[in-house]
Protein backbone atom coordinates (compact mmCIF):
# COMPACT_ATOMS: atom_id res chain seq x y z
CA UNK A 1 0.00 0.00 0.00
CA UNK A 2 1.27 3.50 -0.65
CA UNK A 3 1.38 4.36 3.03
CA UNK A 4 3.41 7.53 3.28
CA UNK A 5 3.00 8.76 6.81
CA UNK A 6 1.99 7.28 10.12
CA UNK A 7 1.43 9.04 13.41
CA UNK A 8 1.14 8.02 17.02
CA UNK A 9 -0.45 10.19 19.66
CA UNK A 10 1.63 11.65 22.45
CA UNK A 11 0.85 13.36 25.74
CA UNK A 12 4.33 14.91 25.96
CA UNK A 13 6.02 16.10 22.77
CA UNK A 14 9.39 16.79 24.41
CA UNK A 15 9.56 13.36 25.98
CA UNK A 16 8.45 11.79 22.72
CA UNK A 17 10.93 13.66 20.57
CA UNK A 18 13.85 12.56 22.74
CA UNK A 19 12.79 8.95 22.20
CA UNK A 20 12.27 9.22 18.43
CA UNK A 21 15.41 11.31 17.87
CA UNK A 22 17.38 8.44 19.40
CA UNK A 23 15.53 5.62 17.63
CA UNK A 24 15.50 7.18 14.18
CA UNK A 25 19.18 8.15 14.51
CA UNK A 26 19.94 4.40 14.73
CA UNK A 27 18.48 4.11 11.22
CA UNK A 28 20.39 7.15 9.96
CA UNK A 29 17.23 9.21 9.77
CA UNK A 30 16.44 12.62 11.16
CA UNK A 31 13.70 15.01 12.15
CA UNK A 32 12.10 16.61 9.13
CA UNK A 33 9.07 18.34 10.56
CA UNK A 34 8.33 20.34 13.64
CA UNK A 35 5.12 22.18 14.41
CA UNK A 36 3.54 23.36 17.62
CA UNK A 37 1.63 20.09 17.96
CA UNK A 38 3.64 17.52 16.03
CA UNK A 39 7.06 16.19 15.11
CA UNK A 40 8.00 14.04 12.14
CA UNK A 41 11.02 11.92 11.19
CA UNK A 42 12.14 10.56 7.83
CA UNK A 43 14.23 7.54 6.96
CA UNK A 44 17.22 7.94 4.63
CA UNK A 45 16.11 5.20 2.24
CA UNK A 46 12.61 6.65 1.92
CA UNK A 47 9.36 4.97 2.80
CA UNK A 48 6.80 6.38 5.19
CA UNK A 49 7.74 9.05 7.64
CA UNK A 50 6.78 8.61 11.27
CA UNK A 51 5.32 11.27 13.50
CA UNK A 52 4.01 11.93 16.96
CA UNK A 53 1.24 14.39 17.56
CA UNK A 54 -1.00 15.87 20.18
CA UNK A 55 -4.40 14.50 19.10
CA UNK A 56 -6.42 16.60 16.68
CA UNK A 57 -9.51 16.54 18.92
CA UNK A 58 -7.63 18.06 21.86
CA UNK A 59 -8.32 15.04 24.07
CA UNK A 60 -5.59 13.01 25.66
CA UNK A 61 -3.56 10.66 23.50
CA UNK A 62 -3.90 6.97 24.18
CA UNK A 63 -2.80 3.69 22.70
CA UNK A 64 -4.67 1.35 20.38
CA UNK A 65 -4.47 -2.33 21.24
CA UNK A 66 -3.48 -4.09 18.02
CA UNK A 67 -1.73 -1.04 16.59
CA UNK A 68 1.97 -1.44 15.85
CA UNK A 69 4.52 0.20 13.56
CA UNK A 70 7.23 -2.19 12.37
CA UNK A 71 10.55 -0.76 11.22
CA UNK A 72 12.83 -2.89 9.09
CA UNK A 73 16.36 -3.21 10.43
CA UNK A 74 19.39 -4.09 8.33
CA UNK A 75 20.76 -6.79 10.64
CA UNK A 76 20.50 -8.35 14.10
CA UNK A 77 22.99 -5.88 15.56
CA UNK A 78 20.84 -2.99 14.50
CA UNK A 79 17.72 -4.64 15.92
CA UNK A 80 19.52 -4.97 19.26
CA UNK A 81 20.82 -1.39 19.14
CA UNK A 82 17.37 0.02 18.40
CA UNK A 83 15.81 -1.96 21.25
CA UNK A 84 18.55 -0.75 23.64
CA UNK A 85 18.08 2.84 22.47
CA UNK A 86 14.34 2.52 23.07
CA UNK A 87 14.85 1.39 26.66
CA UNK A 88 17.53 4.03 27.30
CA UNK A 89 15.23 6.82 26.14
CA UNK A 90 12.04 6.26 28.09
CA UNK A 91 10.64 3.31 26.15
CA UNK A 92 9.67 -0.07 27.58
CA UNK A 93 10.36 -3.64 26.53
CA UNK A 94 7.58 -5.64 24.89
CA UNK A 95 9.76 -8.58 23.84
CA UNK A 96 13.57 -8.73 23.81
CA UNK A 97 15.56 -9.17 20.60
CA UNK A 98 15.46 -12.73 19.36
CA UNK A 99 14.16 -15.18 16.78
CA UNK A 100 10.40 -15.30 16.41
CA UNK A 101 8.11 -18.09 15.17
CA UNK A 102 7.37 -16.18 11.98
CA UNK A 103 11.03 -16.56 10.99
CA UNK A 104 12.11 -13.00 11.67
CA UNK A 105 14.64 -11.74 14.18
CA UNK A 106 12.72 -9.06 16.03
CA UNK A 107 12.56 -6.89 19.11
CA UNK A 108 9.37 -5.34 20.45
CA UNK A 109 9.14 -2.13 22.45
CA UNK A 110 6.86 0.76 23.32
CA UNK A 111 7.51 4.48 23.10
CA UNK A 112 7.15 6.61 26.27
CA UNK A 113 3.41 6.99 25.55
CA UNK A 114 3.00 3.21 25.31
CA UNK A 115 2.66 2.95 21.51
CA UNK A 116 3.90 -0.42 20.31
CA UNK A 117 6.65 -0.80 17.75
CA UNK A 118 9.03 -3.44 16.54
CA UNK A 119 12.23 -3.65 14.58
CA UNK A 120 12.89 -6.77 12.57
CA UNK A 121 15.26 -8.31 10.07
CA UNK A 122 15.92 -11.65 8.45
CA UNK A 123 17.86 -13.85 10.91
CA UNK A 124 21.58 -14.24 10.58
CA UNK A 125 22.14 -10.80 9.14
CA UNK A 126 24.71 -9.43 11.53
Amino acid sequence: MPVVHVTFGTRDLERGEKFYDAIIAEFGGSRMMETEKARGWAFPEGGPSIGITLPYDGNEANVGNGTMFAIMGKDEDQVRRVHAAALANGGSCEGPPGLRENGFYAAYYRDPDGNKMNTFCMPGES
Partner: protein
Amino acid sequence: MIGYVTLGTNDLARAATFYDAIAGEMGIGRMMEFDSFIAWGEPGGGTGIAATQPFDGKEATVGNGTMVAIEAKDPAQVDRLYAIAMEKGGSDEGVPGPRGEADEQGNVFYAGYFRDLDGNKLNAFCYAKAP
Protein backbone atom coordinates in the same frame (compact mmCIF):
# COMPACT_ATOMS: atom_id res chain seq x y z
CA MET B 1 12.07 2.11 6.60
CA ILE B 2 8.74 1.19 8.05
CA GLY B 3 8.01 -2.31 6.80
CA TYR B 4 4.40 -2.56 7.86
CA VAL B 5 1.84 -1.12 10.22
CA THR B 6 -0.83 -3.07 12.04
CA LEU B 7 -4.25 -1.88 13.15
CA GLY B 8 -6.30 -3.80 15.66
CA THR B 9 -9.59 -5.43 14.77
CA ASN B 10 -12.32 -7.22 16.70
CA ASP B 11 -13.70 -8.80 13.53
CA LEU B 12 -11.07 -9.82 11.02
CA ALA B 13 -13.56 -10.91 8.33
CA ARG B 14 -15.33 -7.58 8.55
CA ALA B 15 -12.03 -5.67 8.43
CA ALA B 16 -11.00 -7.73 5.41
CA THR B 17 -13.99 -6.56 3.35
CA PHE B 18 -13.06 -2.97 4.15
CA TYR B 19 -9.36 -3.26 3.34
CA ASP B 20 -9.90 -5.49 0.31
CA ALA B 21 -11.96 -2.65 -1.16
CA ILE B 22 -9.54 0.13 -0.19
CA ALA B 23 -6.50 -1.82 -1.39
CA GLY B 24 -8.37 -2.81 -4.55
CA GLU B 25 -8.84 0.85 -5.45
CA MET B 26 -5.05 1.24 -5.12
CA GLY B 27 -4.50 -1.82 -7.32
CA ILE B 28 -3.10 -3.86 -4.44
CA GLY B 29 -4.05 -7.22 -2.96
CA ARG B 30 -3.33 -9.33 0.11
CA MET B 31 0.28 -10.31 0.69
CA MET B 32 -0.01 -12.32 3.89
CA GLU B 33 -2.84 -14.13 5.59
CA PHE B 34 -3.07 -15.97 8.90
CA ASP B 35 -5.95 -16.87 11.24
CA SER B 36 -5.47 -13.69 13.22
CA PHE B 37 -3.81 -11.39 10.73
CA ILE B 38 -4.22 -10.21 7.12
CA ALA B 39 -1.79 -7.85 5.42
CA TRP B 40 -2.27 -5.87 2.23
CA GLY B 41 0.65 -4.80 0.09
CA GLU B 42 3.22 -6.13 -2.31
CA PRO B 43 6.15 -8.25 -1.13
CA GLY B 44 9.23 -6.09 -1.53
CA GLY B 45 6.99 -3.15 -2.33
CA GLY B 46 5.80 -0.26 -0.22
CA THR B 47 4.79 -0.42 3.41
CA GLY B 48 2.02 -2.90 4.09
CA ILE B 49 -1.10 -2.40 6.19
CA ALA B 50 -2.34 -5.27 8.32
CA ALA B 51 -5.51 -5.82 10.29
CA THR B 52 -4.82 -7.99 13.30
CA GLN B 53 -6.39 -9.44 16.37
CA PRO B 54 -4.33 -8.09 19.27
CA PHE B 55 -1.39 -10.24 20.35
CA ASP B 56 -2.56 -10.22 24.00
CA GLY B 57 -5.94 -11.73 23.08
CA LYS B 58 -7.78 -8.76 24.53
CA GLU B 59 -10.14 -6.44 22.75
CA ALA B 60 -8.75 -4.26 19.96
CA THR B 61 -8.91 -0.56 20.67
CA VAL B 62 -8.04 2.65 18.88
CA GLY B 63 -5.27 5.04 19.83
CA ASN B 64 -6.18 8.71 19.88
CA GLY B 65 -3.54 10.46 17.78
CA THR B 66 -2.80 7.34 15.72
CA MET B 67 -3.36 7.70 11.98
CA VAL B 68 -2.16 6.03 8.80
CA ALA B 69 -1.97 8.24 5.71
CA ILE B 70 -2.27 6.74 2.22
CA GLU B 71 -1.18 8.66 -0.86
CA ALA B 72 -3.64 8.74 -3.74
CA LYS B 73 -2.71 9.64 -7.29
CA ASP B 74 -5.18 12.49 -7.67
CA PRO B 75 -8.20 14.17 -6.00
CA ALA B 76 -10.62 11.88 -7.87
CA GLN B 77 -8.96 8.87 -6.26
CA VAL B 78 -9.11 10.53 -2.83
CA ASP B 79 -12.85 10.98 -3.43
CA ARG B 80 -13.23 7.34 -4.49
CA LEU B 81 -11.31 6.01 -1.48
CA TYR B 82 -13.44 8.07 0.87
CA ALA B 83 -16.62 6.88 -0.88
CA ILE B 84 -15.49 3.25 -0.64
CA ALA B 85 -14.77 3.70 3.07
CA MET B 86 -18.28 5.06 3.66
CA GLU B 87 -19.90 2.35 1.53
CA LYS B 88 -18.06 -0.43 3.40
CA GLY B 89 -19.21 0.75 6.79
CA GLY B 90 -16.41 3.14 7.73
CA SER B 91 -17.14 6.48 9.32
CA ASP B 92 -16.44 10.06 8.32
CA GLU B 93 -13.66 12.09 9.94
CA GLY B 94 -13.54 14.89 7.37
CA VAL B 95 -14.94 14.97 3.84
CA PRO B 96 -12.52 15.12 0.89
CA GLY B 97 -11.37 18.61 0.03
CA PRO B 98 -8.42 20.96 0.01
CA ARG B 99 -6.81 21.63 3.40
CA GLY B 100 -4.67 24.65 4.18
CA GLU B 101 -3.11 27.12 1.76
CA ALA B 102 -1.49 26.41 -1.60
CA ASP B 103 2.31 26.20 -1.60
CA GLU B 104 4.66 28.28 -3.78
CA GLN B 105 4.07 25.97 -6.74
CA GLY B 106 0.31 26.40 -6.43
CA ASN B 107 -0.26 22.91 -5.05
CA VAL B 108 -2.67 22.29 -2.25
CA PHE B 109 -3.03 19.38 0.17
CA TYR B 110 -6.23 17.54 -0.75
CA ALA B 111 -7.43 14.95 1.75
CA GLY B 112 -10.32 12.90 3.03
CA TYR B 113 -10.34 11.48 6.57
CA PHE B 114 -12.18 8.35 7.64
CA ARG B 115 -12.19 5.47 10.11
CA ASP B 116 -12.34 1.74 9.45
CA LEU B 117 -15.02 -0.43 11.07
CA ASP B 118 -12.95 -0.77 14.24
CA GLY B 119 -12.52 3.00 14.47
CA ASN B 120 -8.90 3.20 13.30
CA LYS B 121 -8.25 6.57 11.67
CA LEU B 122 -6.91 6.80 8.12
CA ASN B 123 -6.61 9.45 5.51
CA ALA B 124 -6.20 9.47 1.77
CA PHE B 125 -4.46 12.49 0.32
CA CYS B 126 -2.63 13.95 -2.63
CA TYR B 127 -1.14 17.25 -3.65
CA ALA B 128 -3.10 18.89 -6.44
CA LYS B 129 -3.20 22.15 -8.33
CA ALA B 130 -5.28 24.60 -6.35
CA PRO B 131 -8.52 25.47 -8.14
